[in-house]
C-alpha cells in the first residue's frame, strides 16, 4: 500500500501499520473464548456427556427414565420447579416494582436510608436467612405467637411451610433483583413520555399500565430472568421449608447423594434447558418491540409533583415494607444475643448476653473462615472484574459473528443452579485437564475461587454491558484521534467512565461470593473453608446462637464493604445490574 517513492517528510506515519481492526477484535476475543470454553462450556458439556454416555456408548436411557410414566417424581419435580419459579417471578415483581417506584419517585425524609435498606435481603446468608424466617413466621415463630396471643387464638394463625413458605422466602430474597433493575430503569425513564400520556388524557393508572410499565420491559425482563433462574436453582428454601416437596434442584442433590450421577447429570441438563429456554423466550419477547429511540435533544428530569393523598399512603406502605424486610436481620441479631439453651420452648427469649460472641472469639479457628471467604471472594471478584470488562467490551463495542452464542455462554453459569455448576466442575476437574494445566482441581484451594468466578461472570458482564451501552462511541474515537493507542484510550477514557457500572456488578459478585453456600458445600476443602460452611456446621451442632453470631459477622462484613465502596468509589449498590 505504501508507495516508497512518495514518502514525505513525516515518513513514520504510514510505515507504522499495526494489526487491522478485525485482527484486533480477534485478539480480544481469544482470552474471552478461552475462559468461557474452558470453564463454562467444557464442564457443561462434560455433564451433558455424563447424561448420555453410559458404559462407553451413547444412550438416551437416562432421559427415558426421567420422563418415564412409572416414576412421576422427576416430572412432578420439574413441574413444581417450573411453576414455583414463575410464581416467584410474579411475587418478586409485585414487591420489587412498587418499592422501586416509591423510593425513586417520591421524596420524603429518610428516603435514602430506606432505599438502601431495601437491598438488605442480599446480605442475608441464605441458610440462616431461612432459619430466621422460621423463627419469625413458623408455627411457633415470634410473629405467629404474638398474633396468636393478642387474639387469644387456639391455633397458630398461619405457619411458614410448604409451597407458600418457599414462595415467601423466594419473594423476600429475590425481589431485590426487580428493585435494583427497575430502580435504575426508572431513573433513565424519559419523564416526558409519561407527561405526554397524561396530556393525551390518560389517568394515573392508564399511564402506568400503558406507558410506564411497557417501557420498563427491558428491566423487567432482566430481573425476571435472574429471578427465574435463581428460583429454578434454589436449594435452601425448598429444602428447609417443605420437607419432601419435590423440586428439580433437590432431586439433583438427592440423586447425587444416592450416588446416581447419571441421573443427577440428566436432571441438570433438563434444568439448564428450561432456564435457557426461558432466557431465549424472554429475549424474543423483548426483541419484539423497541423501548428506546435514539434521543435527540435533552429531556429534563423532574421529580413528579404529587398529590399528598397519594404520596403519603404509598410512603407508609414503602417504609412498612422495609421494616418487614429488616425483621429477619433483627431476629438474627436477637438470636445471636440469646445464650445457648435459654430459648428452647419459651415463646420469647428471656435472657440476653454476649456469650455467643465470646464463645466464638475464644475459638482459635474463628478467623480462618472469615479470612478465607474474604480472600477467595476477592480473588474471584478480581477475576470477574477483569474478565467482565473484557467480555463486555467485546460484546458491546466490537462486531463479530457468533455474538449471540457468546452471549448465551456468558449467561449459562447463572442459568445453571449452583449445585449443577459445582457438579460440572467436579465432573470436569477431578481429572487432569489442559484447562487446569494438567492438575486435578477438585480438592484444592483453587476450586472454590474458580467456582465463584464462573458463577458470577454474568453479574459483572451484565452491569458492565449496561454502562458500556450508554457510553458514546465517539469518546473512544476522540481519544484515538488525539493520538492515544487503544490501550491508553481504554485505560484513560473508557475505564474511568464505566467504572461505577462495573463496580456495581463487581460489588454484587463480591457480596454474593462472600455468602456463597450451595456450591461451596460441595467444593470446599480444609484449606478454604468459607464462612457459610462454618455457619452451617454451627447449625448442625445446633449452636443456633453461635451460628447467628457468625451470620451477624458476615452481615457486618458485607455492610462494611458496601459502605466503603459507596464512600470511596461512589458505587450505589441499588444501581447495579
Amino acid at each position, binding site marked *: 500500500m505504501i508507495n516508497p517513492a512518495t514518502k514525505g517528510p513525516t515518513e513514520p506515519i504510514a510505515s507504522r501499520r499495526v494489526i487491522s481492526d478485525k485482527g484486533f477484535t480477534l485478539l480480544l476475543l481469544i482470552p474471552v473464548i478461552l475462559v468461557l470454553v474452558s470453564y463454562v462450556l467444557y464442564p457443561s458439556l462434560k455433564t451433558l456427556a455424563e447424561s448420555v454416555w453410559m458404559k462407553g456408548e451413547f444412550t438416551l436411557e437416562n432421559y427415558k427414565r426421567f420422563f418415564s410414566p412409572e416414576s412421576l417424581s422427576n416430572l412432578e419435580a420439574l413441574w413444581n420447579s417450573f411453576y414455583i419459579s414463575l410464581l416467584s417471578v410474579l411475587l418478586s415483581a409485585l414487591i420489587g416494582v412498587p418499592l422501586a417506584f416509591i423510593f425513586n419517585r417520591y421524596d420524603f425524609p429518610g428516603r435514602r436510608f430506606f432505599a438502601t435498606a431495601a437491598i438488605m435481603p442480599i446480605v442475608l446468608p441464605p441458610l440462616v436467612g431461612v432459619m430466621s424466617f422460621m423463627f419469625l413466621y413458623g408455627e411457633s415463630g415470634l410473629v405467629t405467637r404474638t398474633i396468636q396471643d393478642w387474639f387469644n387464638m387456639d391455633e397458630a394463625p398461619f405457619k411458614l411451610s410448604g409451597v407458600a413458605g418457599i414462595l415467601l422466602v423466594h419473594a423476600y430474597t429475590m425481589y431485590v433483583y426487580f428493585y435494583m433493575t427497575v430502580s435504575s430503569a426508572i431513573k433513565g425513564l424519559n419523564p416526558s413520555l409519561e407527561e405526554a400520556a397524561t396530556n393525551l388524557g390518560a389517568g394515573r393508572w392508564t399511564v402506568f399500565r400503558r*406507558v410506564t410499565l411497557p417501557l420498563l420491559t427491558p428491566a423487567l425482563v432482566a430481573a425476571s430472568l435472574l429471578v427465574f433462574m435463581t428460583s429454578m436453582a434454589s436449594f435452601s428454601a425448598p429444602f428447609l421449608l417443605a420437607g419432601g416437596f419435590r423440586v428439580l434442584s433437590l432431586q439433583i442433590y438427592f440423586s447425587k447423594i444416592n450416588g446416581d450421577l447419571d441421573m443427577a447429570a440428566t436432571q441438570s441438563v433438563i434444568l439448564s434447558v428450561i432456564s435457557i429456554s426461558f432466557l431465549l423466550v424472554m429475549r424474543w419477547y423483548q426483541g419484539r418491540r423497541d423501548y428506546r429511540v435514539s434521543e435527540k*435533544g435533552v429531556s429534563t428530569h423532574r421529580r413528579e409533583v404529587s398529590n399528598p393523598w397519594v404520596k403519603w399512603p404509598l410512603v407508609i406502605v414503602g417504609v412498612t415494607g422495609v421494616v418487614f424486610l429488616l425483621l429477619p436481620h433483627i431476629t438474627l441479631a436477637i438470636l445471636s444475643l440469646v445464650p445457648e439453651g435459654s430459648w428452647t420452648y419459651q415463646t420469647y427469649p428471656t435472657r440476653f448476653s454476649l456469650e455467643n460472641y465470646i464463645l466464638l472469639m475464644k475459638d482459635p479457628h474463628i478467623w480462618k473462615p472469615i479470612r478465607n471467604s474474604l480472600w477467595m471472594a476477592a480473588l474471584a471478584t478480581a477475576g470477574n472484574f477483569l474478565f467482565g470488562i473484557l467480555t463486555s467490551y467485546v460484546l458491546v463495542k466490537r462486531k463479530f459473528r457468533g455474538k449471540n452464542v457468546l452471549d448465551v455462554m456468558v449467561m449459562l453459569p447463572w442459568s445453571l443452579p449452583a449445585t449443577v455448576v459445582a457438579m460440572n466442575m467436579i465432573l470436569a476437574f477431578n481429572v487432569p485437564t489442559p484447562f487446569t494445566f494438567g492438575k486435578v482441581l477438585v480438592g484444592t484451594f483453587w476450586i472454590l475461587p474458580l467456582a465463584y468466578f464462573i458463577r458470577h461472570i454474568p453479574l459483572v458482564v451484565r452491569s458492565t454491558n449496561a454502562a458500556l451501552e450508554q457510553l458514546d462511541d465517539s469518546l473512544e474515537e476522540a481519544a484515538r484521534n488525539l493520538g492515544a493507542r487503544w490501550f491508553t484510550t481504554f485505560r484513560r477514557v473508557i475505564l474511568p467512565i464505566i467504572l461505577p457500572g462495573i463496580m456495581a456488578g463487581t460489588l454484587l459478585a463480591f457480596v454474593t461470593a462472600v455468602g456463597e453456600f450451595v456450591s461451596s458445600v460441595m467444593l470446599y476443602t480444609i484449606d478454604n473453608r468459607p464462612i457459610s460452611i462454618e455457619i452451617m456446621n454451627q447449625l448442625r451442632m445446633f449452636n443456633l446462637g453461635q451460628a447467628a453470631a457468625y451470620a451477624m459477622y458476615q452481615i457486618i462484613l458485607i455492610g462494611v464493604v458496601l459502605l466503603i465502596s459507596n464512600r470511596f468509589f461512589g458505587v450505589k449498590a441499588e444501581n447495579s445490574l
Partner: protein
Amino acid sequence: MIGLSRVKLSQVSKTFGEVSAVNQLDLTINEGEFFTLLGPSGCGKTTTLRMIAGFCYPTTGRILFDDQDVTRVPPHYRDTGMVFQNYALFPHMTVAENVAFGLEVRKLPKKEIAERVEQALEQVRLGGFGERRISQLSGGQQQRVALARALVIRPRILLLDEPLSNLDAHLRDEMRTEILSLQRSLGITTIYVTHDQVEALSMSDRIAVFSRGKCQQTGTPEEIYNHPKNAFVASFVGETNLVPVTVKETGADHVTVESGNHLFRVKKGEPDAVPLRTGEGSWFLSIRPEAIRLADGPGSNRVEGWVKLIQFTGTSYHCKVELGDGTVLQALFLNRPDMRGRLRDGERRFFELPEEQLRLIPNTGGGVDD
C-alpha cells in the same frame, strides 16, 4: 369542530426552591391565535407552557381557559394537546398506536379511532406509515407523528415546545409551513415556544418576548421587530446595532442625538416614543443591519467606516463596519448583481443610516430587565 379556547394567565409566578422561573406573568391568548413565547434558554418558556398543560402548578396566580379556572386541574382533564421538544413518542408502540393512544383513552369506538388515526396521519402527510416502528422514522417524520398525536384528539389548545429545534434548515422550513397551514385550517388556539426569532417572527400572530421569567413585550411580529420596547427585545429579536447616544436637541418631528463625534437626526412620531428631553436620560440609537445603505459620499446621517469582515450567506452579504471612534456596525446587503463585488475587505466607504429607520430605545441598566 374543535372548540376554540381563550387562555388567560393572571399574575402567574412559579418558583423552584430559590429559583424564580416565572415572575408575575399576565398573558391573554385569544381564540384561534398562533401565539409564540420567545426568549433565550432558561427564561421560563417551558415552565409557562407546562403550567398551561398542568404538569406543574403555579406558586401564585391563576390560569383560566375561557374564564374557567383550571389552575389546579390535573393535566388529563385539561384537553390540551402538547408536542414535546423531544417528541416524547412512545417507543414501544407503532406510529398508528401512538396516534391512537389519546383516542383509546377516551374510549372511542374502535372503528372511529381507526378512521381518525388514518385521517390525522394523512394530514401530516404520513399516510401509510401507521405500521412503522418509531425508530424506523427520521427526525422530521417523528416530529410529524408527535403533531398528529396531539391533533387527533382535537384539543382545545395546542401547545408546541420548540418542535423544530432538532431539524436541519431545510426540513425546518418545510415543517414551519406545514404546522402553520395546519393551524390555520383547523383554527386551533396555539401556543408555540421557541428561542429562534426567525421562527417566531415568521409564524406567529402575536409574540411574547421573555427574559428571566418576565414578559418583556407582547405584540405582533412587526411591532416586536420594528418597535422593540427595550434594549433586550431589540437585541434578542434579530440583529440590531445599538449605539449609546445622548439627546442633543428635540424638535417637532425630529430629535438630534450625538454619539462620539457624529450627529444623527431621528424621526419622531412613533406612537411608542418615550418623552424625550434634551440631555436627559440614557439612550440607545438602534438600527437594523438591513436598514443601513451604501452611500457615495458624506452627508446628513452618513458615516464613514472601514469594512472589516464580509460574510456571504447566500441571500446576502453580512458586513462589519468599523467607524472612526471604534464603534462597530453590522450591515446587511442583498446578494444582487449591483452589490456583487462592490464591497471588499478593508475598504473605506460611506454608509447612510436613514432617519426613518433610526429608533431611540431607553437604556435601562443591563438592558435586559426593566
